[in-house]
């Protein structure tokens, strides 16, 4: 269970560019939840994920994971609990290193690194088997540099890396937004499969309302740094895009003005 209580975050405080990114956010994520997060640009979706991951500190509030206080833990220490996939396919992998080297580093997430050899022979079989599930033919290219892969392949690899050690929480920050529609669909299917198979607690930010409705058991809508909608279970299953738009208008008191959300 992950608990965010009274979390605040302001960027560039006391300057002309001050931006209240998160305002008194309270959220309890139950184990096994697959939450989709939607909201316009600057609503605070990415900020929320980055605060959980520890990319920057909270200005106020507390983040608990199964009772463990993460609020002041540095990013690299929280990493043992979290799997992350980013919007930018370049962010999740080391381009100058081989596919197996990237996987080997991900395999050691949350473990103490020693002066033992970086990849052991028996791991290669595991990686090959896992890569096979992606159906991208990467299992035959273990030593290829990741820089040679396409954006979609890199995102699929990052997803695999994030889940190689089962995370307590999987954070997906618009991880299909930079991909072409066909690749995006493929990566999304893969996400659904992996989350289902490993029963991962997941939080997925998306700009696509249909995906947000179709996937997961819970949907959160954010606006100006607040959570304005939190729908789960049966109620979520019956949702349609037009319902979401209506709810947004009612809850935020303004019209949905984000083309990217309307058109997708």
């Amino acid at each position, binding site marked *: 269970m992950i608990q965010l209580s009274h979390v605040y975050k302001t960027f560039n405080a006391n300057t002309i560019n001050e931006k209240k990114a998160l305002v008194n956010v309270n959220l309890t994520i139950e184990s096994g939840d697959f939450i989709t997060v939607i909201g316009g640009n600057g609503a605070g979706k990415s900020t929320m994920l980055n605060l959980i991951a520890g990319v920057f500190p909270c200005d106020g509030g507390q983040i608990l994971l199964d009772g463990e206080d993460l609020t002041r833990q540095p990013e690299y220490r929280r990493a043992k609990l979290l799997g992350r996939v980013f919007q930018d396919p370049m962010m*999740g992998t*080391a381009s*100058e*290193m081989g596919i197996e080297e990237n996987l080997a*580093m991900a395999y*050691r*997430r949350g473990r103490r690194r020693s*002066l033992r*050899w*970086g990849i052991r022979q028996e791991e290669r079989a595991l990686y090959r088997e896992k890569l096979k599930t992606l159906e991208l033919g990467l299992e035959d290219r273990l030593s290829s540099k990741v820089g040679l892969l396409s954006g979609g392949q890199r995102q699929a690899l990052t997803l695999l890396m994030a889940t190689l050690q089962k995370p307590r929480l999987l954070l997906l920050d618009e991880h299909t937004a930079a991909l072409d529609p066909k690749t995006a669909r493929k990566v999304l299917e893969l996400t659904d499969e992996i989350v289902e198979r490993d029963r991962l607690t997941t939080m997925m930010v998306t700009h696509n309302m249909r995906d947000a409705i179709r996937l997961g058991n819970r949907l959160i809508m954010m606006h100006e740094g607040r959570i304005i909608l939190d729908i789960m279970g049966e109620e979520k299953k019956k949702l349609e895009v037009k319902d979401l738009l209506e709810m947004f208008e009612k809850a935020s008191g303004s019209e949905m003005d984000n083309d990217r959300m309307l058109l997708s």
Partner: protein
Amino acid sequence: MSLFFQSLLGATEGAVAQSILWSIMTLGVYITFKVLDFPDLTVDGSFATGGAVSAVLVTQGVDPLLSLLIALLAGMACGYVTGFLHTRLEIPGILAGILTMIALYSVNIRIMGQSNTSLLGVSTIFTVLSGMFAGMSMNLLTILVGSVFAAAVILLLYWFFGTEIGCAVRATCNNEYMVRALGVNTNYTKILGLVLSNGLVALSGALVAQNQGYGDVQMGTGTIMVGLASVIIGEVLMGSRFSFAYKLISAVVGSVIYRVIIAIVLQMGLQSTDLKLLTAAMVAVALAIPVVRKRMLKKAPEEEQEDAE
């Protein structure tokens, strides 16, 4: 003419011998410049620190080999200071290196008690070995000692960068965000790279001091340029598309070629004081080549388009 070549050959032999001792410094610079992508200016100071520590210890009667180890540790401490300034205090990399380098000037004089320490009549690893192998010339001996150390360092680095920790250090320069997301403290890996690099630089300085028979506070001046020039020359000559061990060997070869070039231009009548200009020019040109090439490649398609119209 033949006299010219004869003296050139003599000078070249000496240059090769020197260069192999310096190549250990180049391996250190390779770690920061190529693996960490961090142009570390600490080396100008830590090279002299290595020389100073070793020279002082040897004159005090410490075993010359042991003095090399202590010089290595002293260099590692220098690297740690730069790493601390850069990561914990968030001082930009180049400035952090300059700060340590400047501070080390005073520290090195403190270590020696004066600006240089002569090793005249004191036994160094080179005098000890030349006593054991009486027939061998000093140049040949230097080449042998240097090669043993360089080979050992290459093996050590190859091993280290293949380990779990070494992989994390390599990945840090490549993608810091990913490395943190995978649970590695990137401050720690950066410091580790700097510590390792400066340790090797100081070891090189210690070997050079014992070889030339004195430690001097000025001996490190321009080291970073020599290191960069050597790394770049090695890369240009040997290519960069091969394995890690190959790249390390390239750095050593680059060191040797650099010294040979220097020996040749000196023979051709250039003053030794001109060398820094020459070295700086070499590095500048080598760094500029990829940029210029890219610009020319970018221009070419445009011209083609114009032709098509």
